[in-house]
């Protein structure tokens, strides 16, 4: 059971709802876009696509009915920071969406809420109602002629793959949640064929902070390629699991110190789809250019069985694969079989190499990020923990 706490005071606490929006509406949309660009903000869901670039592409895409979608399908194992944001800072999220709508010229927004977060829905609806009453949503927002925007909440149904933006859109359209062929991207043909921006919950919240506190404040924090602050969901073998705010570019070692995870033998950064960083590499930085993350940090103490870890992640992917493309659908179960063989001490070196090679094919040839990421944990565990996983005696 994850301890549901936030540690230290989050930047989000200091932002007054409405402050970012009012200053944005006073100036032309390009101004807000310019400030977001200057901040260097990149997608907080994990992929790290520059937010201003995505929005700019959506501006340039021809289409009358543009959409702003908030990806609240937080499903990455070990991630729970969006839940905290939605419970405590929903205003910032809706405000960020409203700013996004103002910038790209959208009339409608949708929050795609993770099925397991259904209990948050009434709270979110209350906030939406209040914002409508405050004229922060609806017609002529803040008295500005021609700026109409409203947000509706739609429920996911528990599929991890629906966190992938095109699968999310398929799901919103009432289809099976399966990733689409890309290109074209949602900024061209998104929800119902309209230009659509899909951003993470946290990204929208940071947009508001950047517009309220300035781009300079944001990009002075972090590294050159990974600016600003980020929320982390920390769990596993550490004394103080919970949600943290750290600057981008923090090393794994620094992070472990903050959360009471010293002595760990490995850290999974970026959830099941991320990388397993062994102790020898704890000086690596958590940043898009080194070890990227959507916020999930899972600490593995010295007693953890890494094969069990690999098996656990692979089982997750095998279960969550949409089943559409061959490498992901058929490849993941083969890797699981391999792990089971390793556990029983009956996997030849030849076959391990064969499976690693298969893992590389999955990374290269799968249709979407899920399949491309599925073998990551397996491959990094085989690479970094050879001594531990080889030569087991079957039970």
């Amino acid at each position: 059971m994850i301890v549901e706490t936030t540690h230290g005071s989050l930047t989000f606490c200091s932002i007054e709802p409405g402050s970012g929006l009012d200053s944005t509406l006073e100036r032309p949309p390009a101004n807000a876009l310019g400030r977001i660009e200057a901040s260097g903000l990149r997608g907080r869901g994990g992929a790290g696509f520059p937010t201003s670039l995505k929005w700019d592409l959506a501006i340039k895409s021809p289409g009358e009915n543009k959409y702003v979608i908030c990806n609240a399908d937080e499903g990455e194992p070990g991630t729970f920071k969006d839940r905290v944001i939605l419970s405590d800072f929903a205003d910032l999220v809706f405000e960020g969406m409203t700013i996004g709508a103002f910038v790209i010229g959208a009339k409608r927004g949708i929050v795609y809420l993770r099925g397991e977060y259904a209990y948050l829905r009434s709270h979110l609806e209350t906030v939406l109602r209040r914002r409508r009453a405050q004229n922060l949503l609806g017609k002529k927002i803040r008295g500005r002629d021609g700026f109409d925007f409203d947000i509706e909440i739609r429920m996911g149904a528990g599929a991890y793959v629906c966190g992938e933006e095109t699968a999310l859109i398929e799901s919103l359209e009432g289809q099976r949640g399966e990733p689409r062929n890309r290109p074209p991207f949602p900024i061209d043909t998104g929800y119902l064929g309209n230009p659509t921006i899909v951003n993470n919950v946290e990204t929208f919240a940071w947009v508001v902070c950047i517009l309220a506190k300035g781009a300079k404040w944001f990009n002075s924090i972090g590294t050159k390629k990974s600016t600003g602050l980020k929320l982390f969901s920390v769990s596993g073998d550490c004394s103080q699991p919970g949600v943290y705010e750290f600057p981008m570019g923090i090393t794994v070692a620094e992070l472990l110190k903050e959360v009471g995870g010293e002595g760990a033998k490995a850290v999974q950064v970026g959830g099941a789809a991320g990388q397993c960083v062994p102790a020898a590499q704890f000086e690596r930085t958590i940043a898009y250019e080194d070890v990227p993350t959507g916020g999930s940090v899972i600490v593995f103490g010295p007693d953890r069985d890494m094969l069990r870890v690999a098996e656990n992640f692979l089982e997750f992917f095998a279960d969550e694969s949409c089943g559409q493309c061959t490498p992901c659908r058929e490849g993941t179960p083969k890797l699981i079989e391999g792990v089971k063989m390793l556990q029983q001490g009956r996997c030849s070196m030849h076959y391990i190499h064969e499976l690693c090679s298969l893992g590389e094919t999955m990374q290269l040839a799968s249709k979407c990020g899920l399949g491309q990421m599925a073998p990551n944990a397996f491959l990094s565990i085989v690479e970094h923990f050879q001594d531990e996983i080889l030569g087991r005696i079957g039970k």
Partner: protein
Amino acid sequence: MSDKLLPHGHPTRAPASQRGRTAEVLEHAKALGKQIEVMIDGRAITVPLGATILEAAQQLGIRIPTLCYHEDLCLAGVCRICVVEVEGQRTLQASCSYPITAPIHVKTHTPAVRKARRHILDLMLASHYGECYTCARNGNCELQSLAEEYGVDYFRFGRMEKPRYEIDLSSHALVRDMNKCILCRRCVRTCIDLQEVGVLEAIDRGNRIKITTFGDKPLSDVVCINCGQCINRCPTGALRANDNTDEVWQAIDDPTKHVVIQTAPSPRAGIGECFGLPPGQPMTFRMNTALRYCGFDKVFDTNFAADLTILEEGTELLLRLKAALANDECGMMNDESKSRHSEQSQLQNIHKSSFINHHSPGPLPQFTSCSPGWVKFAEHFYPEYLDHISSCKSPQQMFGALLKTYYAEKTGVDPKDIVTVALMPCSAKKFECNRPEMCASGFKDIDYGLTTRELAKMIREVGVDLPNMNKTDFDEPFGTATGSGVIFGTTGGVMESAIRTVLELVTGKKIESLFDYAEVKPVRGFEGIRYAELPITEVGPVPAIISHLFKDWNWLKGVTLKVAVAHGTANAKLVMEDIKAGGKLSECHFIEFMACPGGCLGGGGQPIPTSPEIRAARAKAIYDEDRSYTIRKSHENPALLQVYADFLTDGPCGHRSHELLHTHYTPRGKYIA
């Protein structure tokens, strides 16, 4: 010949995840003719903006393997066998669904690409259960060919030891063996998109995913129309037609049985493909010899029954026209039928009223009834329109009824000993011959339906090389039919034959005076929906054969006959929706519907593969055969006139014909219990 199966802008129903969509986005740019140069394996080629890498590579003659891709279907990009390297991209890209929008550099056979393709094949083989030598698609399987091409010589990731799924044998027409399915979803896209039926979909996730029907019900219990288009597009043996060759051999081997076979026009245009010939080589008379060699006692031409159908259906059309035009002020539909159309859901009422009353002609437009796939489609999706469908049985069934009555009488063979076999390009015919109402003679009109593929197998089994057989004619008393019967095999053919006959019967003039070589060009071609207007400026005397039904044609003078042709049930659906909405097509008098794209020549029993080019070649063979006949109009078929003189003595649409040659339909609805 254009093979645009669906009209421009027709929305596909397949989820966007299962189609490449940039083509739509770039429609505009494409229209402007914007071109872009790309490099593939170091060779430059200029293609229209938005073309896929696969298309560009094909133009260069570079072969990229494909499995989920099919020319007739929207793109999926799911099997990943067609991956290629695009410079600057981190991952490999599916060439079938990657639209070219920038001057990219592509490599089609780098080590990473070759390894990925091999892995994908290995993975497919690892979850594919079944031995090639016991498979209906042995030698004609895309998975098997690719395994050979890529030198697969062992099961790298193991293989299935036991089947996972029970084989679905519930349908008369199709067999589904999901153990052989590689989840390319061609069948799903065929059913939902090409045919707009939507019986098949993927359920569940991960490697538990499977392609199945609503509620995982057997195929016989869902709205499957048996068209078999999914069979023609399945790359493996997961979908096949229900094979009746064993039963037919058994009948042939039984000396007490008199086994006769009728051959439809389309199989002869396609069967050569099963013997290594290019598409479009007619095998009509060589096949006759081969059939006798197999042991069939008599070989007849379904075209005889096609001519019979034209006379019956044409007469029925004239009766409906007369009822509507001669003294009916409210036009096409009477009030009763109009009000019924507004209450579509009341199946029970429909059931009562849709029973064809032989004495009061049904409403207009009259719909053709030869395509059993279309008939079942209408029974499921448009049950309120069943009285528009001609009450005529299909040629196959008419022939069967005559064989077990007229032919039995004439030859003195006890009808219980006659086994009627029909060679059809069709899987739905297997369902049709098992319809309970198709037993007018007291026996099953048709005992077994064989597909073109099944017959090819039988011919091979007796060691005959079909292309080198000598030619022999069809057997008497039905002889060789007319060109009109032959063109039943292609979309528009029934309409063309009907026009040839009806216009001649009504105007008394030779059709050649209206259309050169009697070729009714406006109804030919592969456009999804075709429409034509035929003004009747003058009328002649009523010919003797139908003088018991009509006094004169004066009521037709000055009338413009409006007809339409649709092939593929997606187009049928468009037509029906237009009629429902009171659009232009609701003013038609006669509409030909064929369930399969291209008509029968593209049927679900035809040789695999299928493509627009293959269908066009088969169509050419059929039209060429039509031209080669001296008699090209159904009402001039001497054998047919003999049958009316000797047996169906009360003429077309008379009592005997109604008893034997006409039928009724079952409103089934689309809701599954």
